[in-house]
């Protein structure tokens, strides 16, 4: 909780009487208004569809597909956002009514309730993001456990095919769109403005809006299980024409869920770009920025350029489903491979969207816990840029066997293999950073080293897949499942855990339990390897992915994997217990428990409401460990936080 004390602006909504209270509850921004506005907007959407169909004389009048789309998946959520208060300021501005002077009442959190409203404080939004994404992480993990229940034995029938295919589809969608991508956005939301010496993000209201889009996307994807016909069951890749014309209603819950999550992603990325370019403290040149800031800068470039492509692919797919257009219907001139090209033009860069912020976290954690400057700082930053550029030229390596133009395979293979070079530079530079350091094995460092070793395995299996002949054998088998989990779990998730433990004291003002943290690491590390390493073998031997049943010769390995995966699932409970109890009762954290140099550790834990009493002056590199007398920034001594709280009338 940020700045729990010293607030002269207690909520000024003084209830005058009973009538005022009711009026405020119904009309003031919050969940009650969100509820009725959701219903109102949904009803308007319903009326629009039915009205137009009646006007045009179309039958049937009540067609569930367009009604669900317009009313439940578009208009309703907009009503929810309006009701919760995400548009209040802009609406007042747009209709010309006097905008309220900013009294910062929507800033900071004084009680847990403040986390459940539209809050413009980047620190509150960061925590909102993280708690929400961890919720969807647990939901997605639970779905994965159910997948493993089905796969524990060949020929089992725990789930019918529709439900089973829905389980792995929703699992992947939640993990990608509602956990890995936004969890990084959450961490960066909290940390980046602090690292820049800025009081907040460039566009705080946009920041709040981009958070509130997320729960909409997540609930949409999860709720597709209860839709008549079942959840979308065509994998998270949603290949056409299977997903665009052979799926129940649930498919459009995926199409639209991706739109809401994607919009959130784009808004956040724009916000980061503007913040990083324009709001750096004096003296904080690009070559003095912490690598976490570099990582989020490059990630945001990827998001802004690539995400519109997946939005396009999902719109086309949904149009085929709902309006019977023929973008991907070969019987009417459509081109199914077109979907894959557009989809992967986003979704390969998306792999880097899910990796680069983790690289940033690694650089911070490894440097601090090795007590050494990051090795080859400039090359580290440049290799991030190299990954961004190369990342846009490799998408078709997901399509080596898709039937696309065969000449495209060799150039895409070459760029794919070359992207291993900047990635390798980063790994070797981290190794050189820990070399001869003074290593302290706190939980963040354990996860960082776990990442380093696991990501190397994922990267090397990626090089194998980059070689077309190998890919021709193992594509779409469990080898892919193993590879992507080594990259996204051994890579991204390990760095997310490292980041959460590392900044936990700064976010909550309390220390987590180190022993439980280490226990969590070892359970995760062992469980992860036992679960995913044997999948390489399943894949090379020829077990396809996305199947509900398999040949009996794979039975023993699958049983082993299922048991290991339940252990891996249980390890999350240790993490949750540690987080919840430490947030409530952990020992009070000092301002800088890790003796780090970056700016966020130079202010109190949690930071004051506007971060810095006075904008700091940056004078050097953020990684000068071991350099006598070196300083990253000069901060004004902070007498009290009341000073900057003077509200503009």
């Amino acid at each position, binding site marked *: 909780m940020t700045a729990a004390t010293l607030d002269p602006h207690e909520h000024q909504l003084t209830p005058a009487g009973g009538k005022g209270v009711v009026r405020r509850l119904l009309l003031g921004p919050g969940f009650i208004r969100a509820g009725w506005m959701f219903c109102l907007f949904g009803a308007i959407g319903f009326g629009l569809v039915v009205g137009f169909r009646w006007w045009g004389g179309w039958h049937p009048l009540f067609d569930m597909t367009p009604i669900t789309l317009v009313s439940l998946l578009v208009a309703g959520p907009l009503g929810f956002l309006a009701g919760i208060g995400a548009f209040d300021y802009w609406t007042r501005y747009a209709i010309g009514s006097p905008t309220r002077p900013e009294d910062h009442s929507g800033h900071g959190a004084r009680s847990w309730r403040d986390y459940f409203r539209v809050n413009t404080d980047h620190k509150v939004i960061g925590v909102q993001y993280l708690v929400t994404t961890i919720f969807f992480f647990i939901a997605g993990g639970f779905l994965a456990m159910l997948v493993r229940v089905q796969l524990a034995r060949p020929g089992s029938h725990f789930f019918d*095919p529709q439900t089973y*295919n829905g389980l792995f589809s929703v699992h992947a969608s939640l993990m990608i769109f509602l956990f890995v991508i936004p969890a990084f956005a959450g961490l960066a939301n909290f940390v980046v403005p602090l690292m820049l010496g800025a009081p907040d993000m460039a566009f705080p209201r946009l920041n709040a809006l981009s958070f509130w889009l997320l729960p909409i996307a997540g609930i949409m994807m999860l709720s597709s299980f209860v839709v008549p016909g079942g959840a979308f*069951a*065509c*994998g998270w890749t949603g*290949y056409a*024409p*299977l997903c665009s014309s*052979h799926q129940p209603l649930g498919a459009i819950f995926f199409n639209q869920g991706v739109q809401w999550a994607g919009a959130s992603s784009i808004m956040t990325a724009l916000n980061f770009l503007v913040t990083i370019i324009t709001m750096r403290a004096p003296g904080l040149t690009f070559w003095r920025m912490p690598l976490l800031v570099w990582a989020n800068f490059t990630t945001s470039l990827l998001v802004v350029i690539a995400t519109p492509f997946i939005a396009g692919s999902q719109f086309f797919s949904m149009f085929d489903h709902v309006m019977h257009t023929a973008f991907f219907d070969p*019987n009417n001139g*459509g081109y*199914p*491979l077109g979907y894959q090209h557009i989809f992967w033009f986003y979704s390969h860069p998306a792999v880097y969207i899910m990796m680069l912020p983790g690289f940033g976290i690694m650089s911070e954690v490894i440097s601090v816990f*090795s*007590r*050494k400057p990051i*090795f*080859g*700082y*400039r090359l580290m930053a440049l290799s991030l840029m190299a990954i961004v550029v190369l990342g846009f030229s490799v998408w078709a390596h997901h399509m080596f*066997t*898709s*039937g696309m133009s*065969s000449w495209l*395979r060799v150039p895409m293979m*070459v760029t794919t*293999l*070359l992207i*291993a*070079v900047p990635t390798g530079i980063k790994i*070797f530079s981290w*190794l*050189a950073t*820990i*070399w*001869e*350091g*003074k*290593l302290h094995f706190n939980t963040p460092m354990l996860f960082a*080293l776990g990442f380093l*070793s696991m990501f*190397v395995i994922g990267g090397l*299996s990626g*090089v*194998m897949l*980059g*070689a*077309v*002949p*190998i890919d*021709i*054998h193992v*594509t*779409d088998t469990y080898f892919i499942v193993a590879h992507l989990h080594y990259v996204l779990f051994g890579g991204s998730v390990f760095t997310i855990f490292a980041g959460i433990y590392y900044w936990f004291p700064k976010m909550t003002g309390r220390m987590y339990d180190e022993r439980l943290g280490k226990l969590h690491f070892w359970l995760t590390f062992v469980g992860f390897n036992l679960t995913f390493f044997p999948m390489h073998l399943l894949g*090379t031997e020829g077990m*396809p992915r996305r199947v509900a049943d398999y040949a009996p010769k794979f039975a023993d390995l699958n049983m082993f994997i299922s048991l290991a995966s339940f252990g891996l699932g249980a390890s999350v409970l240790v993490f949750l217990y540690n987080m919840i109890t430490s947030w409530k009762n952990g020992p009070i954290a000092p301002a800088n428990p890790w*003796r780090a140099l970056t700016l966020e550790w130079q202010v109190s834990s949690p930071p004051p409401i506007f971060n810095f009493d006075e904008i700091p002056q940056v004078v050097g590199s953020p990684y000068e*460990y*071991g*350099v006598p007398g070196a300083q990253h920034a000069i901060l004004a001594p902070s007498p009290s936080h009341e000073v900057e709280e003077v509200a503009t009338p």
Partner: protein
Amino acid sequence: MRRGSIASLLGIGIVSGGIAAAVALAIPWLPVSASKEAGRIDFVFWFVVTICIVIFAVVAAAILYSVVVFRAAPDDLSDGPPIHGHTGLEIAWTIVPTILVTAIGIVSAIVLSQDDAVAKNAMNVNVTAQQFTWTFSYPEAHGLTSATLMLPRGRETVLHMQSRDVIHAFFVPEFRENQDIVPGLTTTLNVTPTRDGTYPVICNELCGLGHSTMRSAAVVMEPAAFDKWIKSQTKAVTSPSAATAGAAVFKNNGCAACHTLNAAQATGKVGPDLDKLPAYAQQAKQPLASFVRTSITDPNAYIQPGYPKNVMPQTFGKAIPKQQLDALVTYLINSSK
């Protein structure tokens, strides 16, 4: 760096590389190789794995050595040496991986062009994929169709693959080959079988609810046995006896996968029981012969209660030549009486 530390670093590197190599060698990672293409692909596989093991050993050695040697005591508040970089090292770990991946790229491109080259005497097989069955037909044997892929050993075969509905993929692990089958396109795959045996044909692209049941088999046999099979099958389907021809058509089109028919020893349970055809025709209030024919060519015209619509492919009318269709209808009528 002291000499002792170099020695122990090397030692750890050799041990971790050795463990990785043991894992690579002790476990049978790849199924038997049953095609010429598989041999080349396996070469690329082990070439890349060797490079990967070396890199893994280097990284593992550096991490393990650092964890043991550079561990700081909890009360040690000192910093490490302020090393900011080393241009030579940084150039080295840019150049060396570039060379390695270039080598992988060249080897892969060569193997790819070898596997893509089509021999002059190649045999053609048309593959039709649909939810959730495979049909293989032999244009050089007057369009003979088969539910399993029969292949002569040693002769290059080009598969011309089409899908009737969604994207499927042809995958035989023993051939090491995968190729998607995309509606609206004809994709091709070259296979030169080298080893007799029966191997699974797997649909390897999620194609709907029955995806995990979309399996067939590839049977590789002596060229002489293959010619014999072609002759006997051609003779069977063109046989003047409707019983012989119909039975062959029934088998070759994979009807047994979904239907029960005692005469053909078929026990499929997905679709209606064909031994009860006369009863169904009565329920549909149609004459038996035209009912059977329509049910094959337009399966949605009448749906027997208790069975779902749109499961049976609607394309058999086009796929099965008229003469064979006549034989099949006669065979079904006679068998179900």
